């Protein structure tokens, strides 16, 4: 019985190809949007996860501090629970780093009579203390240590990434729910149309002794196939998008090359499509009198 039902579902999909193609493209677009949101969220998550590992506070020291003073400050810092490690950056090292960072433009620094940079201490914070509020409080404490001129950390960047991650997470849930509901509605409508177009045939089949399952099954399969094909096309779309971003756009915007792609989601797209497709069909058939 099942081979016949599958065969008749495929036949019906082909017979009503235009309406089905429209549904497939709508599902594709919806799944593409979901994937793009996941893609952005994934990269923001990577950035925010890497932040604690790369995050450090720079404490600029006052000029002409004695070695004892420097050691005292380092010991004070090391004694703090939140601090992973410290590294003293001499004025010479700071200038060397600056020259390396400026690369071709480093000739600007050639004419300097003396090194204008301060000695500093690079302070690495333990991962679990890297949050906007705790970094702020640590930084305030550091400023109170005598011999420290100023404290710097990428406050805005850290805050922005954390805020972006939190709001994107909330937004993606809303977007996922809204688009899933949209996909279900599209398939619901398609299945309803397919059902009404075959109403006469269904009436005959019923009189021949067909069970509700026999009548429903082809529509469930059709909904599933529409969702599956939508998912497969979304994979094609997202791969094209990814290669366009990494190979074409990254020539103009090199930072795009660093973007990571959640390959796992590709396997989920057809599955998400099938689930939403069948769900749409179930709802459509549930409201029909069989």
């Amino acid at each position, binding site marked *: 019985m099942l081979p016949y039902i599958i065969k008749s579902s495929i036949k019906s999909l082909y017979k009503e190809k235009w309406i089905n193609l429209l549904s497939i493209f709508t599902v594709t677009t919806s799944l593409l949007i979901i994937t793009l949101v996941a893609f952005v969220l994934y990269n923001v998550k990577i950035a925010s996860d890497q932040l604690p590992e790369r995050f450090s506070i720079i404490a600029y020291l006052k000029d002409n501090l004695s070695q004892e003073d420097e050691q005292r400050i380092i010991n004070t810092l090391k004694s703090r629970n939140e601090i992973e490690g410290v590294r003293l950056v001499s004025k010479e090292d700071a200038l060397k780093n600056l020259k390396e960072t400026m690369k071709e433009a480093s000739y600007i620094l050639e004419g300097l009579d003396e090194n204008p940079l301060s000695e500093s201490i690079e302070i690495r914070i333990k991962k679990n203390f890297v949050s906007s509020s705790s970094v702020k409080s640590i930084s305030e404490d550091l400023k109170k240590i005598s011999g420290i001129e100023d404290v710097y950390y990428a406050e805005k960047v850290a805050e922005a990434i954390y805020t972006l991650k939190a709001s994107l997470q909330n937004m993606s849930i809303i977007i996922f729910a809204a688009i899933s509901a949209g996909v279900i509605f599209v398939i619901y409508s398609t299945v309803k149309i397919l059902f009404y177009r075959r109403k006469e045939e269904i009436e005959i089949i019923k009189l021949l002794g067909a*069970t509700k399952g026999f009548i429903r099954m082809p529509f469930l399969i059709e909904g599933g196939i529409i969702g599956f094909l939508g998912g497969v096309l979304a994979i094609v779309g997202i791969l094209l998008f990814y290669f366009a971003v990494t190979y074409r756009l990254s020539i103009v915007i090199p930072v795009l090359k660093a973007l990571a792609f959640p390959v796992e989601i590709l396997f989920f797209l057809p599955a998400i499509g099938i689930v939403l497709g069948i769900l749409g069909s179930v709802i459509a058939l549930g409201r029909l009198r069989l």
Partner: protein
Amino acid sequence: MITFQNVSKYYDYQAVLKGINFSINRGEMAFLTGPSGAGKSTLLKLIYLLEWPDEGDVTIGDFHIPELRPSKISDVRRIIGVVFQDFKLINNLSVYDNIALTLRIRGWKERDIKSKVSDSLKKVNLRHLSDSFPEKLSGGEQQRIAIARAIVGEPLVILADEPTGNLDPNTALDIIKLFKDINIQGTTVLIATHNKELFKHSGRRVFKLDGGNLIGEEVG
């Protein structure tokens, strides 16, 4: 095989069948006659469960209809083969697939379906039309295909609702002969028709309906 006890059916509070009592025995062939609007089609619909009685009891085989659960409707329909005036064939399916559908619904294997459909087409003398589509066939051929579809599942009962209504007199008599052949094999047959020529001298019981009342029974 089929029993009606005080069966009434109403549409919009108007009785279309009033207190009908009759029974048809297993293996019997009978006719149901009366003018248009007498209630013949409604009575048949109560047997193949397109309608439900508002009053009274209907029994079909071992099924007591008023107590029947909705999930069992398909079981009742599987012991009944129905032939309609407008044939009700599916135009986008071939003759073979139209007939095979009855068996596919019952979960038969394709290999068995093939031989069964072939036998059924042989009985109505239309084996050569297996690959044709219904729309390309004459009315008589379509009705024979509909009969082949009705008998392929070896039902206990065949119901025919004005089966010759769209056919010329000669074809109509051929169709009735076909029903007689089916009945000889042991299948109960009930034919609703207003055409008296079909049951004249048939020696079969004829139930007369008028205005929703069963007004009499005679032997044709």
